[in-house]
């Protein structure tokens, strides 16, 4: 009888394991039942999004679950209809827009972010001044020494060392890289694909430099390596007190990246009335605007498949464009200019809510 007993106990163990799993899924089912909306995408705006979602849940009881899996993954999951909304640091391409499960997609800018140049020049105390074409040539290996005449011309009061410039870039695909290369693409003709340059993208073929993993990888490398230069998100640079370069904008001013100058960059961009908001605001014409600034977007279907969810999403976005904008600055994100937030609130009516049967 021993074998039978062992067989029986095996069955019992398996049975318990199964029922354990059942109760597990039961629990998660109840917890997902408490979540009203699911979203996925960009990591860059994750801190402000999670603050918004928790504030909104506290105010209205509507729970929104957001997974910061990266813009690429967000676009993929949104296109396949797995999540109710997506989030991305770069707009979807025309090609991507044709391959969605539920038809037309609307891009809604949420906040603004900026990419800043950080560097390690030990003795130099005054903030370095740089321009788009100089940054581009540093990242294309055309400028290799810190005391290059073109850097010196921008920084007449700084005594620059005669050392090699060590270039650091992101190794992981990221919205930060997209914004940075989008800026170089706009500010320097030689950076473009047409001119044989690296072009713009979340991951480009860098002509020179070391790849750091994430903001912390780039910042860590720059902090440790004398003579290095790299780019990171503004929030990261501020919270870690990294040296930040002033960048020359189209109006010829050297601008420090901060909340005001980033919002000014968006205010300077004139959007036509029929815009789809898939616009780049880098290197914009606005006075006082910081040139390496960008929107980050929420992706929403024009005709969402689920009416109840769509209504909740629209209500949240209306809140986001009013109360939500005010909490952005505390987390080092720049709020949208007031009139733009208003325009976008009006645009929410473009999301057609299907008739409930």
């Amino acid at each position, binding site marked *: *009888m*021993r*074998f*039978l007993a*062992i*067989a029986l106990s*095996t069955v019992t163990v398996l049975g318990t394991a199964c029922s354990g799993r059942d109760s597990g899924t039961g629990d998660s089912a109840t917890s997902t039942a408490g979540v009203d909306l699911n979203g996925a995408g960009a990591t860059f705006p994750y801190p402000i999004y999670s603050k918004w979602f928790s504030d909104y849940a506290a105010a209205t009881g509507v729970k929104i679950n957001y997974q910061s*899996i*990266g*813009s*690429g*993954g967000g*676009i*993929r999951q949104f296109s396949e209809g797995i999540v109710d909304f997506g989030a991305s640091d770069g707009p979807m*391409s025309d090609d*991507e827009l044709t391959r969605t499960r539920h038809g037309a997609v609307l891009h809604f800018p949420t906040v603004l972010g900026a990419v800043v140049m950080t560097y390690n020049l030990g003795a130099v105390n005054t903030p370095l001044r740089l321009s788009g074409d100089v940054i581009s040539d540093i990242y294309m290996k055309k400028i290799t020494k810190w005391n290059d005449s073109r850097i010196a011309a921008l920084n007449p009061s700084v005594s620059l060392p005669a050392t*090699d410039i*060590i270039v650091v870039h992101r*190794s*992981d*695909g*990221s*919205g930060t890289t997209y914004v940075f290369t989008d800026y170089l693409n706009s500010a320097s003709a030689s950076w473009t*694909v047409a001119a044989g340059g*690296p*072009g*713009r*993208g*979340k*991951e*480009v*073929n*860098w002509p020179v*430099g*070391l*790849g*750091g*993993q994430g903001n912390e*990888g780039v910042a*860590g*490398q720059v902090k*440790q*390596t004398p003579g290095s230069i790299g780019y990171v998100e503004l929030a990261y640079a501020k919270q870690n007190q990294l040296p930040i370069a002033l960048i020359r904008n189209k109006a010829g001013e050297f601008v420090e990246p901060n909340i005001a100058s980033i919002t000014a960059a968006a205010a300077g961009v004139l959007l036509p009335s029929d815009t789809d908001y898939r616009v780049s605001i880098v290197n914009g014409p606005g006075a006082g605007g910081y040139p390496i600034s960008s929107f980050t977007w929420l992706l929403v279907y024009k005709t969402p498949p689920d009416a109840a969810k769509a209504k909740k999403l629209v209500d949240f976005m209306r809140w986001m464009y009013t109360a939500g904008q005010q909490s952005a600055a505390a987390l080092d994100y720049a709020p949208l200019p007031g009139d733009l937030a208003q325009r976008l609130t009006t645009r929410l009516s473009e999301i057609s809510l299907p008739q409930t049967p």
Partner: protein
Amino acid sequence: MTDTVVATPDPAERAPPDGALTLAGRSIGDLIYRGLTTVFAVAIPVLLAFITFEVVAAAWPALRQFGFGFLTSSTWDAVRGQFGAAPMIYGTVVSSILALILAAPLALGVAIFLSEFSPRWLRQPLSFLVDLLAAIPSVVYGLWGMFVLLPILRESVMPFLRDTLGLGRTPFFSGPAYGNSMLAAAVILAIMILPYISAVSREVLMAVPRSQREAALAMGATKWEMIRDAVIPYARSGILGGVILGLGRALGETMAVTMLIGNRHEISPSLFAPGYTLASVIANEFAEATTVLHTSALMACGAVLLVVTLVVNAIARWLVWSVAREPKS
């Protein structure tokens, strides 16, 4: 490795105890047990085949477009849709082999000390500490590497190798010392695989029968001669098994390497130059890859990594096999 063979009668041949359920003279419990273990054993190759199939299927668009060029090209340009994995293949193999060269002698030394020389009271805690190295998460190694190892390499080790020893005249140690480099990746990998090799080697060395040692000592061998001529040859194939285990771990290691190797798509003979590995490029780019070709090129890297691992393991196994066949001295 044991010499003693305990003669156990085949349970199936033994008559089932009185009263047990039987089928064709066999215990039903045994049949169920046998069936279950067979299913488990078959599940492994099936799973492997399934993974291989999925990876190759997902990699197909890139493999079809670039063909053999995927293995030989050094261009990796997501903007233009040009993908070649040669620098990553090179980086994966070189960093792992370099790590083995650094780790294997060290691990063997640790194992010999623990099994032959260590006082009893020290053996347990020291073994525990070495094994503990295997429990540290990869990302912690990466962080430690970034903030401790890289500055040491950049400021002391690399200038020492290049200038003081004059190795900078060879292509292997030339160029500027950034820190992030093939060398940094190899050193961190060496530390990470050390516990695997040393744990296996230690167990194997301890399993060498006393009689083997006593025989050597009785012949008038010194302790060193005993270890060299009697203990290590006896444990040879087991030690090599440990080395293979370490190699497998090094080939697939992702996070710590990604944080230290510099992530540059370039083949450079210099160990001071940054490189790339197959696992790193997948970790770096998969989340943000949107085009079908880019995703499929990353999957192709996964397929290549699978093949590289298989080939390296096969070579290593062949080595073990040929060594184990040699007559013991």
